[in-house]
Structures are given as C-alpha cells and as structure tokens.
C-alpha cells in the first residue's frame, strides 16, 4: 500500500463570516495550507472538497461552486459528503487519490458557511428527515439528539453534571486556540444551569453553528520528505454507515463508529488502542458525544469515559489528551470544516507546532473521528509521525 503523508495544514477563524463568500473561505484555508509547506497551487495534482449540506450555503451543486475557490480550477476535482462525518472523510477521500498511486500531491479542503441559512441553520435540518413520516412534525436536529443523549445517559447512569465535564474541558482548551469562537472558563454549574433547549440538552452542551474552512495538503511517500522534515503519515482510515432507519438502531452505543475504528486500527496495525493512541480528537458536537465516541473508538471501556474525564486523564496534561484543540464545543462547528480542523490539530500536535495548546510528552500517534448523516456514520483517521 502506498503511504500518504499530511505535509501542510491551514484553517480560517471559525465565526460568523458575513464578509466572505464560501469560495473565499475555501481559498483562505487552501492558501494557508499550501503556504505552510511552501507549495503553490501549480504543484498540486488534484483537489478534493468536502461540504455537508447544500442548504446552508444555499447553492445547488456546491462542489461545482466551490471548485475555483478551492484551487480545483482546471484540475481533477471531486466533492463528497457523508453529512457530519464529511470532514474526516475528506482526508480519507484525499488519501484514496494519493494512495491509489495516481497523484503525488492532493489538496483537501472542507468548507461550510452556515450563517447564510436564515433565520437559523436548524431550519435546514428539517430536510434531513423522511419526507412522509417525519418532516410534517417540523423537527430540528436537537430533538433527535436529545433522545440519543437521554438514552446514552440512562444506559450508563450518567447525570447532566457528568457530561457537563466535557463542555468545561473543551471550552477551556479552546481559550488557547486562535481560531476558536467559544473558548470560555466555565464550571459544571454554569453548564447545568444554562437554558434547556430540548431536555436533557442544555445550551452549553451544544457546539455552535459557525462559518469556516480548513484544509490539508497530502503528499506521496516519494515527495513527502522533499516537502517537509516532519511529515505526519496517514496510517489508518475507516468509515462506516449504519441503517437510515434510526428507530431501529441502538441509540446508546454507536456500533458504526466502532466498526469504522476497527477498520482503521486493522490498517494501522493497532491492537491496543488505549495504549497505542496517544492523543485523540473524537467528534464532540454535543458534550455526551465525546464520551460516547471515546467508548466506541475503544479508547475508554464502556461506561468509563466519564471517570477518565473526571480524573483528568483526557485533559491536555493528562495521559491521553482528548480534544486538546477545544473540539467543536470550543472552536465552533462549521460542520465539515470542524472535522478537518481536528485533523489539522492532530497534525500540529504530532509535529509539536500547537503552540500554547501543545500537549506534553511528545505524542506519536493521534486519532481523529467524525460522526454524521442521520446519526449513522462514523469516519476515523489515524495519523502517526
């Protein structure tokens, strides 16, 4: 199998970007990623774009629309989507382009501009439900997430205070992230006393919608060391989709994430994830999701994720830092871009370039994961230096 390295990364600030079009956001991220490894768009063989929902930007065929801003003009260009899992999948799709042996250098960019969806992007989520059975109920995403959160907390015996620990940790971590929009010093009381949106989901349990883009540059083995001294290798990739009929799934445990993780671990030759993965960026659009995903990624035993968080194992100075970037809860959640941000973070952490966010102990292996579609998709990437 051809090895593929991440050699550059870049991202825009995540915040409402009323002044920029989606194309410009994509351009900004790609330019930063290319600059970081001293390449120009002329060196790039192909471009891969990820973007979750056309409704947010309000553009049909969003891939085509983004193609020139992403640097894909007059180049092989493809767009893919797996809902919220799109970001990490972007990296996998880019990996395919290079690992297949067809290209040497591939730019991967993910962009989402949610603020143009008025009055609130939650309105667009109504259109992810079944046209006949569910849409007439006028649902948004929180309604279904509340069911999952409740089921997960009840199964594992967690309280609102337990899951609030994640919000406190991640929003605290984000204080050091220059692109973050929601860094804050909070206490568990702040979180559980915030407004209830859809029980048991509190306002501070949720990551905020945002605008932004993030990009990485991938290179083949023969070129990676010519571009940089510190390439970060993509060692494992995995993705998995469960049934669309969410009523027939186990809402407490995302088996699809476990399957995706096992696929990636097998490729990376990882037998004991808890020992071999040093740093993780699981998907945390809601605080309970980080805990649930850690368990499904086999990074925590089932029902033990809260204990790890409470003990500080997952803090930035802990044994296994989880979401040292601040995650979606802290940095913001422009859906597909947020998950590429996680790949960027692992890249910077493994290279020791994370600045104030740098975790101690010289981590060698990192994992990024995203979750998406109708709560049915898991995508996992394992990076090693």
């Amino acid at each position: 199998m051809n090895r593929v390295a991440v050699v550059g990364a870049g991202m825009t600030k995540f915040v409402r970007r009323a002044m920029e079009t989606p194309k410009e956001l994509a351009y900004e991220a790609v330019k930063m990623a290319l600059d970081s490894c001293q390449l120009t768009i002329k060196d790039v063989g192909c471009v891969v774009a990820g973007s979750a929902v056309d409704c947010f930007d309000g553009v049909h065929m969003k891939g085509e629309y983004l193609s020139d801003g992403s640097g894909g003009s007059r180049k092989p260009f493809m767009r893919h989507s797996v809902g919220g899992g799109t970001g990490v999948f972007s990296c996998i799709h880019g990996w395919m382009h290079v690992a297949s042996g067809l290209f040497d250098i591939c730019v991967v960019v993910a962009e989402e501009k949610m603020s143009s969806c008025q009055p609130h992007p939650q309105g667009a989520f109504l259109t992810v439900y079944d046209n006949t059975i569910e849409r007439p109920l006028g649902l948004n995403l929180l309604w279904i997430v509340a069911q999952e959160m409740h089921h997960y907390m009840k199964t594992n015996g967690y309280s609102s205070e337990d899951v609030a620990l994640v919000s406190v940790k991640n929003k605290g971590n984000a204080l050091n992230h220059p692109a973050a929009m929601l860094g804050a010093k909070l206490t568990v009381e702040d979180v559980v006393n915030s407004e209830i949106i859809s029980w048991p989901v509190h306002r501070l349990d949720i990551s905020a919608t945002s605008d932004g883009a993030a990009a990485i540059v991938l290179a083949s083995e023969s070129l990676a060391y010519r571009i940089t001294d510190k390439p970060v290798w993509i060692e494992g990739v995995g993705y998995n989709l469960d049934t669309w009929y969410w009523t027939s799934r186990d809402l407490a445990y995302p088996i699809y994430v476990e399957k995706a993780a096992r696929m990636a671990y097998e490729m990376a030759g990882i037998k004991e994830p808890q020992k071999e993965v040093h740093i993780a960026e699981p998907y945390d659009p809601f605080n309970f999701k980080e805990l649930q995903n850690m368990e499904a990624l086999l990074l925590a035993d089932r029902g033990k994720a809260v204990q790890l968080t409470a003990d500080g194992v997952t803090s930035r100075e802990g044994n296994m830092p989880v979401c040292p970037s601040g995650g979606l809860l802290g940095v913001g959640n422009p859906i597909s871009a947020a998950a590429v941000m996680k790949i960027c973070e692992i890249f910077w952490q493994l290279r020791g370039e994370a600045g104030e966010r740098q975790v101690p102990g010289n981590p060698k292996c990192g994992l990024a994961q995203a979750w998406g579609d109708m709560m049915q998709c898991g995508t996992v990437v394992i990076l090693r230096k």
Partner: protein
Amino acid sequence: MVYLKKGVGVMTRKVAVVGIGHYGFRSVSPEVSFREMIYESATRAYEDAGLEPMDIDGFVTAGEDWHEGHSIADEITPDQLGAVKRPVFTVNGDAMHAFISAYMHILTGQMSICMVESRSKASNIVNSHEITAMALDPIYNRPLEENPYFIAGLEMNRYLYESGNTREQCAQVVVKNKRNAMKNPNAGHGAKLDLEDILNSEAVSYPLTSLDISPHSDGCVVFILAEAEMARTLSKNPIWIQGVGWCTETPSLERRDWGRSFCTRHASQMAYKMARINFPRKDIQFAEISDEFSYKELQHMEDLNLCHRGEAGFLASEGATDFDGDLPINPSGGTLGVGNLQEANGALKILEVVAQLRGEAGKRQLKDVKLGLAHTWRGLPTTSGAVVILSNA
C-alpha cells in the same frame, strides 16, 4: 498539463467491472420509489456478479441533495444496497466520479470489491429549471433570473461560430441518437425524426430548440468493480478499466471557455495517458459521450480528440458516427434517446460500453469491439467532465 504521477498506467493494478444492474429508463416511474429502484438495480448487479452483499468491501454512491429533495441525501443509501454497517460514502458529482472513486479505492489495496450506485428520479422534480438556476453564482448570475438554458444557447452559438459546424449538423445528431434509441429496449425517448422536425421544434434559446435538449428520465444503475485476480475468478468476461480522467474547469460563467470543453480535453488526456493510447482516433472503436444538448456531442467528439476541430459536424452528417459508421457514437441512443438521468448520466454511458464490450447489447450490438470510451459532462451550468476507457481484453 496532466498532473498524473510518473509511471501511472504501467505500474497500476488492474481493476474490472464484474457486475452490472439497472432499472429503467423511463420518463416516469410511478410503480417504484427511488429506494425500490435502487434495490432492484442492486439485486440485478449482485445476481450478475454472483455475489452477496457481504462479499462487497465498500460502496460508493452518487447524488446531489437538491435533486433528491433531501439534505444529506447520502444517508438514505445503505439499506436498499445491502450496505448497512458497511463502508459507504457519497460523491456529490456524476456517477463517473463515484465510479472513479471506487476504482481508486481498489487501487489503494484496502478493498478488493466495490459497488457503485447512482440514480435519477427526475419525474419527482416539479421545478427542475429553478433548481438548476440555484447552481449559478448567487451574487453575479442568479439575480438575472434567467432560465439556465440561456447558457446552452450562448455556448452553442459560440461553439458553432468557432468550429464552423452548422445548426443542421447538430440536428443530425438528434436524428441519429433518437434513431439508435429505437433499438434499445431500455431507452425511453427513441423516435423516428427528420431534420425538419428538429429545426422547426419550439425555440428555447437561440439557436437551441426543444428537441436539441435531452428529456429527463428515471432510472438507477449499479456496478460491481473488482481487482484483477478476483475479477478473473468472478466473471467470464470482466471488462477492464484501462484509464480514467476527470476535470473541472470553472463555475464562473465569465471566465470559462465558451467555445470548447476544457474539462473534456483535460480528462481525456489524463485517461489516454493512463491507458497508453497515443492515437485515440485510431484506437477508440466506439464511444458513449455526453449529448445532453445536441451540439455537445459534436463539441465533445472534438475535445476527446476523436476527430479534428470542426470535423465533427461533417462526420455526423456523413453518417460516420451512425450505428454502422466508422466511429459509432452513442449506439445506445445517448441521453437524447435514453433520457437525461442527472447524476446517473455517467453510469448510463459506462453501462452501454460494458454491454457492448461483453457482447450483450442485443439488436444494437457492434461487431468486434475491444476498446470503448465513456464520457460524461455534469450538465448546466457546470464545467465538470470525466472519461473512463474500458476494454474486454
């Protein structure tokens, strides 16, 4: 110009199409939902390849949210493909992009059998022009509130002016493709027409008339791809992928090349390089190329290097591209004859090339064909295209 890595084509693993299945194609399909359509096609593909869902390593689908009427439309795909709790992803592009993604995934060595699915349920769409208009730039172009066919009219004008081909020669393409479709039991829009019918049909955007435009169809196409060793065990007549190429020019109406199809030229150069084809005119025996508008077939022939610039119209009017001509183009009837399948257009093209190379094309079977080319263009208002070259040996 072509960014392919050195040595591609020599070192690349071989991948073949081992199973095909489709449902349709008809202008309406009230008897099935789009999920049932996918189920039907997938079942046929499994049967064709002699496989079960558990034998497939990964699934790739193609679709656009706004054509499905569903945000995150990829979430609906796993169940009816037999892909629940399996690796599945969606390419928001033409089926040929999805096909190429599956091909690349097999080349990486992580998977050895992949399934590709794409579908069209265009009859469910009541405001297709308005949806297409939403693909225009929201700031510069959308406020003009034009029907997007104006782009095709402008482009046709420019193309005819630059290449020297004539309006009548474009009409000849419609006559040929609708005639070819009469022999194709899957085609929904076959007809016996003459030049006058097309020239006198309702004007849409000068010089484009209504019969120059491919009418929409419903249908679904599924392929199963496998790496060489597996393909030889699975199939008596695997159809080998010799080369692939794809390209996007620019979404901007202001900056694109209106006379030529840049993406087609670039994508085909990439595919020819991979397939090590130096003289496409000589080596390609037949081609299924995008003919969403009549002039597009001529333009694409020229940019695929299947003839010289300005020669395509002559070849069409002399009958060289007819079913029994020297270079049969769109023996299936193309999208003009079969119908425009939106994202599945690329799949329709590959489907026909595979059927011809297998010798299963029935009444429209071409004689002694070994190497065929499938090409697609994503339709208005895009400048994205892809090429796949297939052979049966």
